[in-house]
């Protein structure tokens, strides 16, 4: 039972690890190690990335190599492929602490898509193993200009030609594709007529960078996570062999549901970690800034904001770890994960906003990283399923069972 494993939560203070959740010494060490890694290896590069919008190659390589040396690279993958095999709760702790740092940089603390475990035959040596060893990087592409929340509305289509497939279409908003050696792409491979209208069949493909007919080009400039770019993928009569199919033909939704189910926990966990970093700035400022001859933290208008912030952060932390723990225990977790993603990402928006309010005008200036955290927070409510889609998942889960 989760409730039974809820130990006391440590009162927060600067530089403090916050939450204890039936955690073992190993859990603390995992979180502590990742946290000091982020503090020592990531923070000092952040300003450069913010200013230039790029991660210099040497810095990327250095972060990657250090992560490999620490045995943390691809730690979400099982021991059977030579990785650490962390469970969902342990991995959520890793993601939470990584969430403190710039996503452009923590991208190289590699966590390849779990979906690569669906690799079979030659795909194993060509994609899975190089990915978990840090030799090749991946990206994952579902979204299209005309198909966001409505994944099935995708137009990018593959048509059979002999044993090959010929692909045409466009994907956009694809994170990390500028560094990707290959991309896992979801493509429509047919259509079924159902009583509710036509329904696309979808297949996952593995496509190498540089494959003829496949182009990765610069996408839009995003207000969130500078340096963590989103790219546009174009398929122009791109011919893919049968071996490029990941999982079963027309089995795209199955691989998605099996493997991508848990990725929303990542957004929730990262939101919690970032919120804790932001909170420390707010707490410190409230305790040191003076107006009207006293610390602003003495004014209830400020101190109650602090109280609300930490309450929401702790709540989001518990919700997130509890949903991960449910997965580890083999319990249904779809609704719980959706709640964690929804609540943590919206909490981060409120916490970053309050942190700026507490800092007054200085909060908006780029002398402090607060305006960055505030901008970065915005995307968390959009990607990996918008807040509305999470609410849809949560409410359907409850109401469908009642026939409503």
């Amino acid at each position, binding site marked *: 039972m989760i409730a039974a494993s809820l130990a006391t939560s440590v009162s927060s*203070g600067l530089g*403090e690890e916050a939450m204890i959740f039936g955690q073992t010494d*190993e859990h603390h060490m995992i979180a502590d190690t990742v946290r000091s890694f982020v503090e020592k290896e990531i923070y000092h590069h952040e300003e450069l990335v913010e200013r230039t919008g790029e991660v210099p190659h040497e810095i990327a390589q250095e972060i990657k190599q250090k992560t490999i040396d620490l045995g943390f690279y691809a730690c979400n993958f099982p021991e059977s492929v030579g990785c650490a095999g962390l469970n969902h709760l342990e991995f959520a702790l890793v993601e939470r602490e990584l969430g403190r740092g710039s996503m452009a940089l923590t991208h190289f603390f590699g966590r390849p898509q779990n979906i690569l475990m669906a690799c079979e035959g030659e795909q194993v040596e060509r994609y899975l193993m190089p990915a978990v060893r840090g030799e090749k990087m991946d990206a994952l592409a579902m979204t299209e200009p005309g198909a966001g929340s409505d994944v099935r509305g995708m137009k990018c289509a593959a048509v059979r030609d002999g044993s090959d497939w010929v692909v045409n279409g466009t994907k956009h908003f694809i994170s990390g594709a500028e560094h990707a050696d290959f991309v896992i792409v979801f493509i429509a491979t047919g259509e079924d007529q159902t009583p509710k209208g036509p329904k696309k069949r979808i297949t996952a493909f593995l496509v190498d960078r540089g494959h003829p007919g496949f182009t990765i080009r610069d996408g839009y400039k995003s207000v969130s996570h500078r340096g963590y770019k989103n790219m546009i993928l174009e398929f122009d009569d791109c011919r893919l062999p049968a071996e490029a199919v990941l999982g079963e033909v027309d089995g795209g939704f199955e691989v998605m549901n099996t493997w991508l189910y848990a990725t929303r926990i990542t957004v929730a966990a990262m939101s919690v970690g970032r919120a804790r970093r932001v909170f420390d700035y707010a707490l410190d400022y409230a305790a040191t800034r003076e107006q009207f001859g006293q610390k602003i933290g003495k004014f209830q208008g400020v101190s109650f904001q602090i109280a609300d912030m930490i309450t929401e952060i702790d709540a989001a932390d518990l919700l997130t770890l509890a949903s991960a723990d449910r997965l580890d225990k083999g319990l249904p977790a779809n609704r719980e994960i959706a709640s964690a993603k929804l609540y943590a990402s919206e909490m981060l928006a409120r916490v970053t906003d309050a942190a700026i309010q507490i800092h007054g005008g200085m909060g908006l200036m780029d002398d402090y990283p607060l305006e960055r955290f505030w901008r970065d927070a915005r995307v968390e409510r959009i990607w990996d399923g918008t807040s509305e889609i999470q609410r849809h998942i949560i409410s359907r889960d409850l109401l469908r069972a009642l026939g409503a």
Partner: protein
Amino acid sequence: MKVLVPVKRVIDYNVKVRVKADGSGVDLANVKMSMNPFDEIAVEEAIRLKEKGVAEEVVAVSIGVKQAQETLRTALAMGADRAILVIAADDVHTDIEPLAVAKILKGVIDEEQPGLVLCGKQAIDNDMNATGQMLAALTGWSQATFASEVAIDGDSATVTREVDGGLQTIKVKMPAIISVDLRLNEPRYATLPNIMKAKKKPLDEKTAADYGVDTAPRLEIVKTGEPEERAAGIKVGSVDELVEKLKEAGAV
């Protein structure tokens, strides 16, 4: 050779320390605790000696409350082979004084027969800087304090010490107690495989009574207070003004 590394659980160096209202000490309930940073350096050095083939086994020992087990797990995750926890207090606020710690360590040494003890030069909580020296006196072993470089060569060790005037190099006979300073090395992160392995490494639990040591305090803490607040500074317009102000303040 076996290396014994005493490690202390102290308030994390990042935590803002709060003095208890009654002035009896600092508040340690509900704050993040970590391994004393100097002890981390000692553990790192011991592991490096093992990696170089100079040491065969690294044993970490901690004396204090049961929660010090976490500190020992950190040492094991860094690469120590096994750990000994000597429980000497129930209340996290009880600090065991250097002499009692040294006496217990002497007992551990008698049992374990290490060839070298590597310890931090001091703990960042009370800055006593005494345990290593007392242990050397109790065992009759050589001591080398504030080490910034250590080279073991058979039955002697060459140690560079950070002293007030600069660096001093001494040669001591083994077995020895070496207390380490900040610049000796940069401690590693625990690797993930080692974190996962740490749980399986042996951690023996003992009590102070097992070593026949009375840990009752001999020192009385009269008062603990906040450090004096730094007075606000002023801006000066020129070098001349700076010199003048420094003279006024009696600083030059």
